[in-house]
């Protein structure tokens, strides 16, 4: 059971049973909808920012414990971060997921999300853990387009 317990850590099952920020807010800056084509899991993800800082993340969806816990963790972890900070946390998390069990993850950066480190040993589940984070990345790009219309020049 060792292997399985490293996948389903207590923290994960907790988030799964009591997900944070689940239930879509009525107001949001952008909403995205993501699907996991291999299992059919779906997520809707609302994101709002103020002055570049994430002020609200809410979501809803169906999926396995890993995907549900992962988005729950993300929705909590990324709150009140700037979009840049959140983006780099997401990159760190994505890297951890592709580490094939060779990394533990930095708890100072990833907090509860380090509990998902075990997922990287189960290739079929990496997409589950990434579903919410990919939704976040997508939403972040869109919110930037929305709120920071190209200021770099006139091309």
């Amino acid at each position, binding site marked *: 059971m060792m*292997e399985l317990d490293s996948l389903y850590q207590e923290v994960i099952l907790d988030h799964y049973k009591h997900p944070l920020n689940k239930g879509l807010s009525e107001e949001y800056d952008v909403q995205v909808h993501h699907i996991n084509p291999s*299992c059919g899991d*779906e997520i809707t993800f609302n994101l709002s920012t103020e002055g570049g800082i994430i002020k609200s993340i809410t979501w809803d969806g*169906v999926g396995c414990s*890993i*995907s549900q816990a992962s988005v729950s963790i993300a929705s909590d972890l990324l709150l009140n971060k700037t979009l840049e900070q959140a983006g780099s946390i997401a990159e760190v998390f994505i890297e951890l997921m592709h580490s094939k069990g060779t990394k533990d993850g930095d708890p100072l950066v990833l907090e509860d999300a380090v509990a998902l480190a075990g997922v990287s040993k*189960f290739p079929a589940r990496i997409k589950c853990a990434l579903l919410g984070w990919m939704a976040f990345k997508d939403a972040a790009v869109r919110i930037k387009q929305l709120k920071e219309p190209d200021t770099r020049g006139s091309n």
Partner: protein
Amino acid sequence: MSLDVATIRKDFPIFDRTVRDGKKLIYLDSGATSQKPNSVIDAEGDFYRFHNAAVHRGAHQLAEEATDAYEGARSKVASFLGARAEEIVFTKGATESLNLIAYAMGNAASGSRFALTSKDQIVVTEMEHHANLIPWQQLAARTGAQLTWFEVLPDGRLDLNSINEVISENTKVVALTHQSNVLGTINPLDAIVARAHEVGAVVVLDACQSVPHMPIDVKTLGVDFLVFSGHKAIGPTGVGVLWSSVLEELPPFLFGGSMIENVTMKSATWAPAPKRFEAGVPNMAQAVGLGAAIDYLSKVGMDKIHEHELLLTKYFLEQLQKVPTLKIIGPTDLELRGSCISFTVGQIHPHDLGQYLDSQGVAVRTGHHCAWPLTRKLGVPATTRASLYLYNFEEECDLLVEAIVKAQKYFA
């Protein structure tokens, strides 16, 4: 049971290995791909070791032997299906077979019975595997034809009530599965074939989940095209079959060597079937391996395999239904079904359940099983599926049930 499963399992080397820290392998995923007996593995290897050469091409002894082996495999497939050798095309798998039919119809000259226009209809069903749905969506999009379908009833059967409206005078093709790879439902063909032929349509049968599991005679079925994959029938990967009685009328799909009659820089003409549909150096070793698979299945006896699977399915259905909150997705009447058994267990997501079962050595498949429109329609975006074959036995069901009960505790 009438099959000597213990003896059969000795022929399948994978059952000698263990999984997840020494656990016995309980393989309940033959609907995705089947395991292979030594005779199939050796047939492929021996082809390379002793007879390897390009078929139909060289004027030397190896080429002759390779051709004999390859054409011998074609004859085996033919007699297995009650067909003639010229009616058998080797493809790389059922997916290619189905795409071949759809693309070849798209290549048909206008006026041909296969040429589709915006006046025509293509009929599928809501329980099709993506491989027997998307090629037809695409053909419809390319030709302007309309795609319509038989709906699936909540109990997992096709709704044939309005058969005469679904298959109309404008229908040119009816493509459907013989056994659903999700529900296990075996579709009643007689009425559909009769109605299709009445309006001059051809019937394309996706027999991926039936040819490996029951005796099949294409003449009795009455369909016009039938496809299956070698790898689901204890054969090698990389080989599939297209059978059709109307190959001569069908234009080619893949173009290249060996499928031609004459070639100039500007145009080409085609060899007769089945060569017309086998461009290039074929998957020779795999076809030969499939021949060995058919020898093995025939020796065991398709009727015995079918009987064995039905008894086993009965046992699985009975035992599974005793598990609290477990729900069978698909018909529970044995008359209507084969050995693909899908279910849900309370609120446990199939991915989590599958992962837990894996930790116990039990290999199942979870998800939409490449039949997403079906699982959506049934309101179960994902299911867990146990699919059985000649090497499975009752005790494996008990271990599955035991593991499910443990999973319920784990995720409670």
